[in-house]
Structures are given as structure tokens and as C-alpha cells.
């Protein structure tokens, strides 16, 4: 596998204006090859991180990112501009991850999650790897929506308003889900 070292990224998703978002969507709908590459350069890191934190392995995460780009290509003409383009892309990615998880659940010979969560050399010496492993395991035990809210807020640094748009819930609901999830994780965290 052509995997290089996995790295921890701390950059938030760059914001863009509504007119810029519509221009990007129109270019995607027109099949502009360059615009897809720009999107990949701009959002690729976040897309890979979100997918990896949902799916637990690089191979599935890359497939989900690829599928997301194909879906963007197919449905860019339906982008209305109500949500930001990044939010729209993340929504497609999260739904793609849900599809992968459901397919995986149906597979009889599914490997246990411990085996699927890949470990790799990382550059984040400030936090203990064991803690990361524990949290990753706990995250994979969470229901889809809770995992998404936690991942998007705590890991990706998105706002509750953005998460609400991505997951089709209210901002308040997102806030409540995060609080309940963190409480739940905290209890399990203490037990581990």
C-alpha cells in the first residue's frame, strides 16, 4: 500500500463565500477537471480524516473519498447554495461512510473493529497512543450519528451550525448529542 506516514493535522476547514461556492459547484457540474483537483487540494485532508475516523481504515476511507468525488460530479448541478460547499461535500462524505458501514455490517465475515482500525506511525507525541487507541475503539462502538457529531466537532473542529447542516439536525440538537456522547465516553473512559 502506498501509504506514507499518517500525520495529525490541525488546520480548520477554510471558509469560502456563497458566490465562490456557487462558482465551484457550477464548474463541477460543467465537468471542469481542474476544479476537482482544487477541491481535493483544499478539502482532501479533512475528507480523508473524517472518512478514516468513521471507517477505521485507510483503504475504506480512500474509497469513500473517491466515491464522494464521483457523487459531487454527478450531483453538483443540484447544489443550491443553501449550505456552504464544504458542508455539502462533508454531508456527501458522511452519507457515503454510512453506506460503507451498513454494507460492512451486512458482511458475515466482518473483521472485528480492533483489526480494522489500522495503526500507523503518527507524529503526535503530546497524547499517549494508548489513549488514542482507547478513544478510537470507544468511538467505533458509538451509534452513527453520535460518532459523526463527536468526530466533526471534537476532531475536525466544525461548528454545531455546520454539523447541523451536514447531518440534517438542529444546532441545539448537535450540541446536546455532543454533550451526551462526551458524558457517555467519559464514563467508559474511566472504566478502561
Amino acid at each position, binding site marked *: 500500500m502506498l501509504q506514507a506516514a499518517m500525520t495529525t493535522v490541525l488546520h480548520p476547514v477554510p471558509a469560502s463565500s456563497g458566490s465562490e461556492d456557487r462558482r465551484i459547484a457550477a464548474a463541477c457540474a460543467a465537468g471542469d477537471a481542474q476544479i476537482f483537483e482544487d477541491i481535493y487540494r483544499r478539502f482532501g485532508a479533512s475528507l480523508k480524516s473524517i472518512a478514516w475516523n468513521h471507517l477505521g481504515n485507510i483503504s475504506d476511507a480512500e474509497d469513500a*473519498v473517491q466515491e464522494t468525488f464521483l457523487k459531487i460530479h454527478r450531483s453538483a448541478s443540484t447544489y443550491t447554495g443553501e449550505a456552504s460547499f464544504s458542508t455539502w461535500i462533508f454531508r456527501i462524505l458522511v452519507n457515503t461512510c454510512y453506506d460503507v458501514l451498513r454494507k460492512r455490517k451486512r458482511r458475515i465475515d466482518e473483521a472485528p473493529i480492533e483489526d480494522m482500525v489500522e495503526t500507523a506511525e503518527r507524529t503526535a507525541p503530546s497524547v499517549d497512543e494508548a489513549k488514542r487507541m482507547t478513544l478510537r475503539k470507544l468511538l467505533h462502538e458509538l451509534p452513527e450519528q453520535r460518532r459523526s457529531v463527536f468526530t466533526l466537532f*471534537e*476532531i475536525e473542529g466544525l461548528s454545531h451550525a455546520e454539523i447541523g447542516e451536514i447531518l440534517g439536525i438542529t444546532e441545539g440538537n448537535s450540541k446536546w448529542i455532543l454533550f451526551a456522547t*462526551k458524558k457517555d465516553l467519559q464514563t467508559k473512559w474511566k472504566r478502561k
Partner: protein
Amino acid sequence: MTITCNQIDDLLFDGSPLAMETAARHAAECDACAQTLAAWNELSDTAQSLRTTWDNDTLWPRIERAIRAERKRPMRWTSRAAAAIFIIAALGAPLFYMLRVQTREAAFDRTIIRVSALDEVERTERDYTRAIRNLEKLTDAKLEDSESPLMVSYKEKLMLLDDAIAECEANIDHNRQNAHLRKQLLAMYSEKQQTLQDVLREDSDVSNP
């Protein structure tokens, strides 16, 4: 702002920098809340370290190829099926509408014909019964006056026929379009007409020996 231990959850739920700062100030003086806050923050810190990416020089070329292939690919069978359904619906809808209108018009015409035919039958029936009642009036006196066994027999037969006719007419009132009942009624009226004519003939025979 001074807070109590009960409010720590509200501050964690709020999650804003101000709320977290307030919680931290309280935690500095409260061991239990300090532990809660430490665990909360540890969870967030660990979560932030899970933001992960990796380099894969082949991923973008792979995505690019997939997009290019998708652009070149002819319509997928699902899209073709959707297009076919759309065309059928687009062409079929006006046809279906026209047929429906024609069917409705035909049904309306049939209803009109049926109603007018029924009106005609009832009109004819009314004329017929009126004629029989006139005939009946001519026989009334003879039937009332005569004590001959034949006349008494005619009288009884006519009474039975009248009862049967009344019952049949009551049934027809509930089901106007029942042709069978109307045939029965016609048969009874014919019988009554025949009987009345027999009475008159008898009368003529008596009057003109």
C-alpha cells in the same frame, strides 16, 4: 461569577470559551469538579489528536481517472430506466388522459341513454295503467252489482292481481332499473287487462243475448 457543583454540567454543555473558563475557575477550588473537568478536557485533547491524514500520491490520480471514466461512460442502466419511465410517462399521460375523458364521456352518454329509456318506459307504463284504470271504471258497476259466481270469481282474481301489482310497484320504487320487476308488472297488468276485457265481454254477452 460564582457557581456551584450542580452547574458544572450546564457549563460543559454550553462549551463556549467563557463557560469553560468559568468551569475552570470553579474547578480550581473544588477537587470533584476538577477531576470531572480534567477528564472532559482529556477526552477533547485526545479527540483532537485523532485528526489524521496521510499522503498517498496515487489517490488523486485514481479519483481523477474515475471522474473521467464516469464522464465518458454511457448512461447507466438505472439512468436509462429512469429516462425510459420518464418518456413513457410523458407520452402516456396525455394518452391516458384522453382515453379517460373519452371513457367518461361514453359512460355519461350511456347514463343519459339509460335514464331517458327508463323515463320512456315509465311514461308508457303510466299511459298503460291509465288506460287500464279507465277500463276498470267501465267494469266497476257490473262487478259490484252482479252476484253470479263467474263475476265473483273475476272480482277475486282482480283483487289478487291488484295486491300483486301494488307489491310489485313498491319493489320497483326501490329499484327503478330492475327490468325483471317491470316485466312482472307488465305481465300482471296484461292479465288484469285481459280479465277486465273478459268481464266486459261477459257483460256484453249478458246484455246482448
